[in-house]
């Protein structure tokens, strides 16, 4: 289990993350949602072990994150940051192979091959990474972080992604989330920062809503994604409809109206 308890982080006395607690089991997809500046990325960095927190604790499979060496941590969790820049002419395959830099694997070639197939990047393998389109780059980066935890291991692992779908078209967004969903069978827990509420509703098992550094809601997707809470967290009117054909939840946002915003605030 990836478990965060009462995380507190502040910069110059100003709290960025405040008393945040959440947990992620292997085989679950947890989406973190929240408005800009809510502290999502800071929380993400604390969870990944990159940033220490002032108070509180983060543990992977019961072991505190600060006790794990970067190499041990890399075997348990893999991280995809929002932007990764590559300044040198590495090929797509070389970038993917980097995911295995610290991990010993008996069949590195096969892992790379499988992951590149799964992310639909095999055809790009000999192309220079910097010459790829934004979406292609994001898929190659996804392949890089997947290869790190692709091999079956006897202990649960975790994948943390910060907006992995931001440069992707709708088909690719769904393709990526499908890959992430399939990781459940590999005993992997997925934590993903998303902006698209509908993607979260379709693919996440659990949702954590973050506002002003605090967890405004954490629980099963169906319980958390409801009109009042979402409207409050995002300061914008949100309505939930039912999809006429599939019957799934459809989260709809109204256009910006000062009066309606005021109305729900007074409500």
């Amino acid at each position, binding site marked *: 289990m990836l478990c965060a308890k009462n995380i507190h982080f502040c910069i110059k006395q100003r709290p960025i993350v405040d008393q945040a607690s959440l947990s992620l089991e292997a085989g679950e997809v947890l989406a973190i949602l929240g408005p800009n500046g809510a502290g999502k990325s800071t929380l993400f960095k604390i969870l*990944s072990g*990159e940033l220490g927190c002032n108070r509180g604790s983060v543990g992977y499979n019961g072991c505190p994150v600060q006790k794990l*060496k*970067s*190499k*041990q*941590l*890399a*075997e348990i969790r*893999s*991280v995809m*940051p929002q932007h*990764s*820049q*590559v*300044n*040198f*002419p*590495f*090929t797509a395959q*070389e*970038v993917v192979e*980097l*995911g295995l*830099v*610290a*991990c010993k694997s008996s069949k590195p070639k096969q892992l790379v091959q499988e992951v590149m197939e799964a992310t639909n990047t095999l055809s790009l393998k*000999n192309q*220079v990474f*910097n010459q790829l389109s934004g979406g292609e780059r994001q898929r190659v980066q996804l392949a890089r*972080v997947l290869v*790190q935890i692709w091999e079956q291991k006897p202990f649960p692992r975790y994948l943390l992604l910060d907006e992995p779908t931001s440069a992707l078209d709708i088909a690719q967004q769904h393709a990526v989330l499908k890959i992430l969903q399939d990781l459940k069978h590999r005993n992997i827990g997925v934590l993903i920062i998303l902006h698209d509420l509908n993607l979260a509703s379709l693919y996440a098992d659990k949702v954590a809503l973050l506002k002003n550094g605090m967890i405004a809601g954490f629980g099963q997707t169906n319980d958390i994604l409801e009109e009042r809470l979402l409207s409050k967290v995002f300061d914008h009117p949100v309505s939930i409809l039912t999809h006429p054909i599939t019957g799934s939840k459809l989260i709809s946002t109204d256009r910006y109206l000062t009066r309606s915003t005021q109305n729900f605030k007074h409500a």
Partner: protein
Amino acid sequence: MFTPALNISKLTLRGTILGGMGLFLLIVGVFSLSKGAFSIPLSQSLAILLDQVGIKTGDFTQQQANVLLQIRLPRILLATLVGGGLGVAGAALQGMFRNPLVEPGLIGVSSGSALFAVIYLVLVPSMSSLLWLQQIGLPLFAFVGGFIHVMAVYFLGQSSGKSNTTNLILAGVAINALAGALIGLTLFYSDDAAMRSFTFWSLGDLGGATWQKIPLAGILIALPTILLFTESKNLNAISLGEQEAYHMGVNVPSLRIKLLLLTALMVGVAVSLTGMIGFVGLVVPHLIRISFGADHRLLLPASFLLGAILLNIADLMARTIAIPAELPIGVITALLGAPFFIYLISTFNQSKN
């Protein structure tokens, strides 16, 4: 970019490239042995070399043998070590700073080494009578100076944890200016001899090569080079970003210190032996990346070989353009390297836009 044929494995390809470059270095070296103010025909050069390993193939005069073995051979070995060391140091620093414009001269390693070397030369002759201290002290001082400067530039060049090209180059300019001023100040309070040696520091010179200098250069340049080779995979990871390297399991702080120490050591020793030779560390890794890609497992050894080749060619030019006088080698590398640098800056800006 060079894309390998599918039936050749990456490893064989790497071996072929490195083998070819090694062979070329050997040819340049032998050719360089026979050229200069005192010309020795190629066949006689070979005969002298073979004679050393006990094979008699032809006649030569003792004078020819002396020039070749006592003057040119150590010089070529030194050019190989220094050129190779600068090439590898440049490649490693570019990888670590994730910036293809980084060069030991640009970010202050060379000037830091030169400053400390000058300080040492001004202070120590009055203090020390021990020859071994002279031999070790100068490179040691140069190393310390280079290390302090590269650390300063590294930390000044970061803004909120990220290395930023503009900051980095500005920090390099500032540190270089400071080092230049301090060198000037030191020289102001010293004698004529020190003034003359400043030309040596600022332009570079392989003319002082003797056999005594080779073991020191051999150990202090070759050893860090080999240690850097073992970090190739980690350098690959860190060139994706320090954050990403950490996520992938690389111990970034320790890698960073290791890289800074090793490159400062190599550049410090090179500077203490031959003065500041610019642009080798910039141009060489670029040429390799353009031709063979960015994988440091090939980039580092290939940069060593190409650096050695280029510095030997530059030295050959320095010795033969104005016979019997010699041009400072730094002038040649700068004349070739500076236009290349200007070209790089222009293409670098284009690729950003």
